[in-house]
């Protein structure tokens, strides 16, 4: 049993070459999709405020673990800053936290999403992740910019959180199902 525990820990927290590659891919995808949705200047105002990219740190978190999630969210957002031209470091950290918390789902699912239960767990952790991550970002603004909590909640936290949660809840299972099918073919350990 001791052995099992050890491999549990390394499975959730270990950083192998695989993890490095998935970190890099996740961050590139997160920044890439933000870049595309920014430069497309999608018409139809409803879409502009939506960030479909939010599903990327959630997905990479729940599938590959908290470190990959942290990196995907944090560095992905930082790379996006390199496009937009200014660095909001507390939002970078907040986005990292989203992926990190979502990644804790790995404790219950081992990264396998072939059952309804596991997908539901992924959803729950994703919602918590978004609340914690964006909460961190918004509330650190209270401190750094000396805002009142009411301002941070109404102008930052709620407008960012609600759409992200809705997007995440809808798009994450779609990706997980596709991922599951792709993995059965690849048959990789």
């Amino acid at each position: 049993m001791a052995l099992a525990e050890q491999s549990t820990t390394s499975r959730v927290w270990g950083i192998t070459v695989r993890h490095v590659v998935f970190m890099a891919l996740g961050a590139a995808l997160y920044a890439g999709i933000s870049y595309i949705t920014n430069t497309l200047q999608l018409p139809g105002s409803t879409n502009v405020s939506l960030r479909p990219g939010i599903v990327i740190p959630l997905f990479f978190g729940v599938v590959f673990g908290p470190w990959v999630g942290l990196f995907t969210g944090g560095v992905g957002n930082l790379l996006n800053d390199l496009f937009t031209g200014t660095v909001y470091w507390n939002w970078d950290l907040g986005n990292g936290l989203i992926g990190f918390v979502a990644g804790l789902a790995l404790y219950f699912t081992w990264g396998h999403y072939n059952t309804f239960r596991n997908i539901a767990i992924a959803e729950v952790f994703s919602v918590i992740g978004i609340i914690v991550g964006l909460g961190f970002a918004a509330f650190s603004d209270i401190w750094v910019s000396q805002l009142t909590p009411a301002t941070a909640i109404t102008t930052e936290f709620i407008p960012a959180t609600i759409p992200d949660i809705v997007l995440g809840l809808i798009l994450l299972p779609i990706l997980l199902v596709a991922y599951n099918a792709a993995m059965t073919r690849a048959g990789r350990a």
Partner: protein
Amino acid sequence: MVIDSNNTPNPITAPPAVFVEKLSFRYRSPDEELQPKRQKSAQKKETIELPQTIEDISFSLPSGKLMLIAGPSGCGKSTLIKCLNGLIPHSYKGTLSGEIQLHGRSIKGQSLRDLALQVGTMLQDPDKQILGSTVEQEVAFGMENLGTPRAEMRERISGVLNQLHLEQYQGHATFALSGGQRQQVAAAGLVVMRPSIFLFDEPFANLDSRAVDELEELIQQLLQKGSTVIIIEHRVEEALRLKPDKVLLMRDGHQIFFGDTQKFLEIADPTQVKLPIESTLRTLSDPTQARNILIRPIKTSQEKNVEANDHVIEFEDVIFRYDTHSEEILHGISFHAKRGETIALLGPNGSGKTTLVKQALGLLRPTKGSVRIFGEDTRNLSVAQLASRIGYVFQSPGAMLFAPSVRKEVSFGPENLRFSPDHINAAIEEAEKALDITEFDSRSPFSLSFGQQKRVAIASVLAMEGKILLLDEPTAGQDYRSYIAFMEYLRNMPDLDILLIITHDIDLALRFTQRVLLLKDGNLVGDGPPLEVLVDPALLVECNLRHTSLLQYLLGERNAVA
């Protein structure tokens, strides 16, 4: 270990560079991997064993020689390579048996790091192989990992870049390089590690002929320096130009031939791997029939009464640039395509083939000039409206597959076009039947093989009932056997008005199409029946098109008649 004296020409020389005996490998299925939580139940559950992937492979290759591994897709070529470079058993788990020696030393017990200094491996897709953002970083990658001091790295990098004539690219972004240059840079990243054995996994896929020539030159150079080279290639015809010393032919994980090239050509089956035309002629009872058997252009429209001036696609002096300030990519392209034609669009990498067909789809709009589809100017039509008339299948099926089942995938287009539900069902049924994917109807497209995915992609475009079908490099990434099978599917498709295929492959144009459009640097430099356009050797060279033995044969035959 006794070395078979037949395989070592000179008994006093050093042991062979690569020596493999009775090598077998079976991948471990994911179920067999114990998960911490399921450890107990796993013992009870019967684990499904995957079949043996490669079985009983034995060969020996002397130092400084070139070996070709051929065989259809899935026969285990890449798996064999993984055994040689140590990925098996270091990162792929499974059951391995047999013996591998490099320069007389068994690789058992050697770490990946030790092996990396002896074996350099080039993966098939340079997009995956290249890990540095700039050429310099890419070449440095392996040395960085080994902790090489910076000064030494710089020295070795400039040495290798000089050797491969890549000096001028040193600081360039790897992303912006052409396909051929990328292969060269990837090779530089291996050469700098100074291995004595090089493995190339399908290096010629997706390259035009100039890039292939450059790569061949590089391989020759490696051989001259005394390196040992193994290449995998199912386009055997291309690889034979390198004059391999040995050929290993595999099928279903077994070795069915190992020996000299000459002997190989005598026994190989031309329907399995792509061989020079002579091999096909040999298998035919009546070689004079070769032409009729091989050359059967696809006829699209079933209608007999095709009018001569029934133009379906009309390009009128199309000029295009991506940005107002960027350079012009298409310089005034004009051509008309009639109902019933099958057209091959040929041209070197970067000549503008994809850019050209995107004009017809409305994905790009001509900067000057006009494109008309069924007589209507594309300027007045949205992409979605055009989509109901023209189907375009992108090169990689992975670019478009997304749905949870094949059926949903195929229905995506018709739904976007707002067909009625009955109409949608009928369209799906017909498209699935045409490409023979009905049996996968409820499976996820992601669980299918590459070739099957390709068919799903085409079916989902066909289901939109456009009468024009454009295929971007439909055969890239498939082995010869599945490529021929695939082209036969196209032949049997329900009636289309026009089939246009973008390709690098002259043989495809010769065998399956009626007309060739030859594009070079954004100009149309050739237009006509395949043999008439391709007859000019200077033009072929200019367009980086490779002279094939089939073309040679057909031209020879024509001259004989004349």
